[in-house]
């Protein structure tokens, strides 16, 4: 190549940098101990609780309805997972700040693509894992428990509700991570923001969607007894807020030094 000669046209796939970051981040997250602990703990808790209820039904004669048990399980997964999901997502970008980010961001990738790659990777991984765990739990409860009252549509809505709330948590984690220089600070900020927001929303009147109320209503939702307007407002609100937070994180990240 001659320095003075015009540059040769190089075939470039513009989508490839995003996809490379996405794949790399999924692999990285899959290898992390936080993800493994989360999956193991959630799976063990789900199986253990189902078996306990199954034993209580068969030996003690305590009839346990699948919607109530699954409602409890989804609630626990949501509450119990929040801490680990925050830890898993709040270090997504800031932990790579400095030399590691140098070797990626100094290549042919824009900040937008990098952020989108990281965000969607964590979103896809955590949500897919949660949905898989929820399917296993639902299948187990149908097999082991009194499942006549369990509604398929209600189950889908319940899983979608928790998934929407988790999406919000993941997005906040990645967005704060993009704006912060330190993982510990990032985790603390996400914790405070989410719990404060959750607390404030729980103080609002009943007709306002709140994560706390939505989780408590899960047994009824699993039976198919839900107010579609309220649920859809909660899901749409969570997704809209997620998009807004992601957009703010992406713009903020593109204006920061790495």
């Amino acid at each position, binding site marked *: *190549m*001659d*320095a*003075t000669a015009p*540059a*040769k046209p*190089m*075939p*470039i*796939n*513009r*989508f*490839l*940098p995003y*996809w*490379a*970051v996405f794949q*790399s981040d999924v692999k*990285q997250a899959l*290898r992390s101990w936080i993800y493994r602990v989360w999956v193991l703990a959630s799976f063990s808790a789900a199986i253990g609780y189902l078996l306990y209820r199954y034993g209580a039904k068969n030996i003690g004669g305590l009839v346990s309805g699948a919607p109530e048990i699954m409602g409890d399980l989804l609630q626990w997964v949501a509450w119990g997972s929040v801490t680990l999901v925050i830890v898993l997502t709040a270090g997504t970008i800031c932990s790579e700040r400095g*030399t*590691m*980010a*140098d*070797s*990626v*961001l*100094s*290549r*042919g*990738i*824009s*900040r*937008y*693509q990098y952020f989108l790659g990281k965000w969607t990777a964590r979103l896809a991984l955590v949500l897919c894992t949660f949905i898989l765990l929820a399917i296993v739990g639902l299948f187990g409860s149908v097999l082991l428990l009194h499942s006549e009252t369990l509604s398929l549509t209600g189950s889908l809505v319940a899983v979608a509700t928790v998934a929407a709330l988790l999406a919000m948590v993941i997005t906040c984690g990645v967005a704060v991570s993009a704006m912060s220089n330190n993982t510990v600070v990032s985790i603390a900020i996400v914790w405070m923001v989410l719990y404060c927001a959750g607390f404030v929303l729980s103080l609002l009147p009943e007709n306002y969607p709140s994560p706390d109320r939505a989780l408590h209503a899960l047994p009824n939702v699993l039976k198919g007894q839900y107010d579609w307007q309220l649920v859809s407002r909660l899901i749409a609100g969570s997704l809209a807020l997620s998009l807004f937070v992601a957009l703010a994180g992406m713009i903020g990240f*593109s*204006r*920061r*030094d*790495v």
Partner: protein
Amino acid sequence: MAENSSELVVETYKLTKIYQNRQIALNDVTLKIEPGCVLGLLGPNGAGKTTLLRLILGLHRFTAGWAKVFGKKMTPNAAYLRCRIGYIPTNPQFPRGMTPISYLDYMARLFGLPAQVRKPRLASLIRAVDLLNVSGDPIDAFSNGMTARLAVATSLINEPDLLIWDEPTHGLDPEARRSMLELIKTLAREKTLIVSSHNLSDIDEVCNHAAVLSRGHLIYFGSLQDLKGRMRKNHYELDLEGDQKAITKAMQTIKGLSDFRSVNLRQRRLELRMAEDANNASALANVFMTLADNRITLVSIRSVGQQTEQAFLDLVEKEESRGFARAYQAPEAA
């Protein structure tokens, strides 16, 4: 220097970087780099060399001024400009669990190179940097030399027009350092390079232009020849062979010459320091005549002291000594 900015590879204008209103890392840096230039970036620790490189790469945002690469303004999102740049950071870090093949493949995908382009290219580069035998091994266990070679391969994966190498010889053994310098010389025939280094002899050997930074301020930008030309070449060492008495006698004769400020003999090494106003060609001619008259063989002659180093130190010292006068910049200098 090229007048037309579209011909320039890198152009900065009053580039300034202040970190969080606490630290002035770079101040008012204006420079123009033409195609084919091999620029050595010099400066003491904390002078702002890495900051300047990171601003040119768009890793940092400038507080004031601008930087253009290939005629276009560099920003953090100007990925299309970085597609034409190959970068080696000071201490290249590699993700854990990756092998040279998977790492180069990842880097090539970050440039958007499709498989039919990147696979043959990464294979050629792994062969070229002599990592073929370890191409399937995890990078974590690599030595400094091996990671440096991998970093070189990474910086060339996109066939860049501009190479930015931040201290490429840092931490390398003499053999690896020599290979790196030879590689820079080879690449310099085809590409534009910016090489930052603490090692002035490296810069001296491979660069044709120099930029000297001191406390974030550009105190010299021009050809290396001009920088070295600022220093008088007035200190020589001659290794001699012959009768010791004859050498001593010759030394006495040379001492009598008015061109020399000091003449010292240490065994068979003659050290000459010339007077400020002496013509070094005629003074050295007289020395050679004296040696020939005394039947002394001249084994070697060399100019003592790193000229680039001396010039660099001189520049930094001058800049420091200007004191408050630095606050005023003459219009022609600006």
